[in-house]
């Protein structure tokens, strides 16, 4: 009984890792065969970014059970701190990989710390109230980044929130973060392989966390706060832990995102609430608390608009229909029943019975 319980989890996890690895191999073959358009190839890194974001948000929404709409804000923190570091160190650390790994760590830690600081007051709220406040914090982060000016010259770093002239740089000075124009010239250190490795690391962290002592404590809070408290679970600690880890992983996604772009700007499109809601859509459609579902939903919903580009005007219409169909498929009680009846396991079981 015990063994089965553990091995079932292990099997589930291996399938999830397997899906990612197989998808990676297939895409690599397609690339080498030259049957992937350059447009699609350009989409591969953002795809990894979205998958990591969806998995990390699922930790907050599905495992901790709290609705957060500020996930893009944490991604923004990771993107800018990571890119800032890489820009500063471009000529100091010449090995790309080491610089990128350091940028990743810095981005993750910064996003995690911001997540912790925001989480402390905010996680006292629940449900819709929490969603609204996280939404606001996400926007605040984006707007602060938009008025941030940081420059570097021989005297060191200069900081301003007014404009780049008030930095008072020497003539050879370098404006690294230029307000609304963001960071330009970030070294392009990320690629699809690194993205997939980061997905695997994210999965490793999230899945192992869920099936550990801390993960159980987090899920017990989701299922019944009062009962969890009565058996000695430290609610604040575990809520903050889940929220900060989730934010840190969003930071990782941000670093990956920023190192794929030449110029990084905090626009409403990439770090605004639209993005946060899109990530939430991945999580909800993939199944709340279902990590594998988040991955699949993120991939399908990212590729779909591109695949449907040929249909020009009908593109968004079909996208909407697919959204509705996926939602019904995942959540309608009737369809869940049907799915159970026709699931692979059932069919195999039935054919065995016939024999």
């Amino acid at each position, binding site marked *: 009984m015990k063994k089965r319980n553990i091995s079932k989890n292990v099997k589930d996890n291996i399938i999830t890792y397997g899906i990612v690895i197989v998808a990676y191999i297939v895409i690599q073959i397609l690339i080498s065969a030259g049957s992937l358009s350059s447009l699609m190839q350009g989409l591969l890194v953002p795809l990894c970014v979205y998958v990591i974001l969806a998995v990390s948000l699922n930790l907050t929404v599905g495992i901790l059970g709290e609705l957060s709409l500020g996930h893009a804000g944490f991604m923004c923190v990771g993107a800018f701190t990571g890119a800032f570091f890489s820009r500063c160190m471009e000529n100091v650390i010449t090995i790309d990989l080491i610089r990128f790994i350091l940028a990743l760590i810095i981005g993750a830690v910064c996003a995690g710390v911001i997540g912790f600081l925001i989480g402390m007051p905010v996680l006292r709220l629940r449900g819709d109230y929490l969603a609204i406040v996280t939404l606001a914090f996400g926007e605040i982060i984006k707007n602060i980044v938009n008025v941030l000016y940081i420059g570097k010259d021989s005297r060191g770093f200069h900081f301003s929130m007014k404009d780049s002239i008030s930095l008072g740089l020497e003539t050879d000075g370098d404006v690294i973060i230029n307000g609304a124009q963001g960071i330009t010239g970030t070294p392009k250190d990320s690629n699809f392989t690194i993205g997939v490795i980061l997905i695997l690391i994210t999965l490793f962290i999230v899945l192992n966390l869920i099936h550990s*002592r801390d993960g159980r404590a987090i899920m017990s809070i989701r299922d019944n706060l009062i*009962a969890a408290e009565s058996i000695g679970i430290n609610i604040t600690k575990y809520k903050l832990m889940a929220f900060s880890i989730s934010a840190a992983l969003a930071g990782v996604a941000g670093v990956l995102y920023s190192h794929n772009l030449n110029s990084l700007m905090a626009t409403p499109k990439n770090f605004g609430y639209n993005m946060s809601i899109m990530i939430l859509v991945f999580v909800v459609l993939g199944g709340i608390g279902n990590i594998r579902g988040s991955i699949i939903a993120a991939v399908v919903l990212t590729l779909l608009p591109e695949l449907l580009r040929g249909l020009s005007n009908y593109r968004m219409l079909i996208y909407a229909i697919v959204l509705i169909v996926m939602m019904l498929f995942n959540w309608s009680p009737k369809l869940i029943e049907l799915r159970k009846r026709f699931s692979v396991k059932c069919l195999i079981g039935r054919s065995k019975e016939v024999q």
Partner: protein
Amino acid sequence: MAALLEVKNLGISFGGLRAVDDFEISIKKGQLYGLIGPNGAGKTTVFNLLTGVYKPDEGIITLDGENITGLKTIEINKAGIARTFQNIRLFKDLSVLDNVKVGLHNHYHYSTFEGILRLPKYYKMEKAMNEKAMELLKVFELDGEADFLAANLPYGKQRKLEIARALATEPKLLLLDEPAAGMNPNETMELMDTIRFVRDNFDMTILLIEHDMKLVSGICEELTVLNFGRILAQGQTSKVLNDPQVITAYLGE
């Protein structure tokens, strides 16, 4: 013998309502103690005061010589009081085994880091937790359902699982809030055996709220009767149940 739980002059008001007034109780180690009274008499409020859900306005609660008045719920649990709830509060989307393992949380430690990286300590501790949890489930004849989601258990077994989870925290005192609520006579009989078994085998002291008079007179050694937040009668079960005041206020003639 010194009392395990000693409560003196406990009281709380909600606005103008005096929910519990001058409540006193003294439970010896190993005792099966009953708390009864009409609906709204303040029984669950007493439980909530004992477990730190509410902070008492006045009074002192001592557990095993340690003053636990006004502590937080988690601290009181760590000091040694575990409870079940009137309306079952299980972790519905966790397996039966995991429900008990959450209860073991504060007795088996490994860090988050060790958990994520799956270091040897993780496997060692998880194995120990599984064994301990299965042991507890066996006591309640739930070991066959260890993999089930808690929500899928039948009602009687959910009640049992709640007790198992509370016991997993290794308390000194177990509070049961209407354990027989919604059970049929057979299940109630079975529950009585289980409660006695827990007392004898786990060396447990149990305080329970119950409306089922058969259960109360069957297993409780002493009783306290509450009415309008005040103690109406207190003492040996047979004496209390024959008290004319108790009969008019609660049992009916």
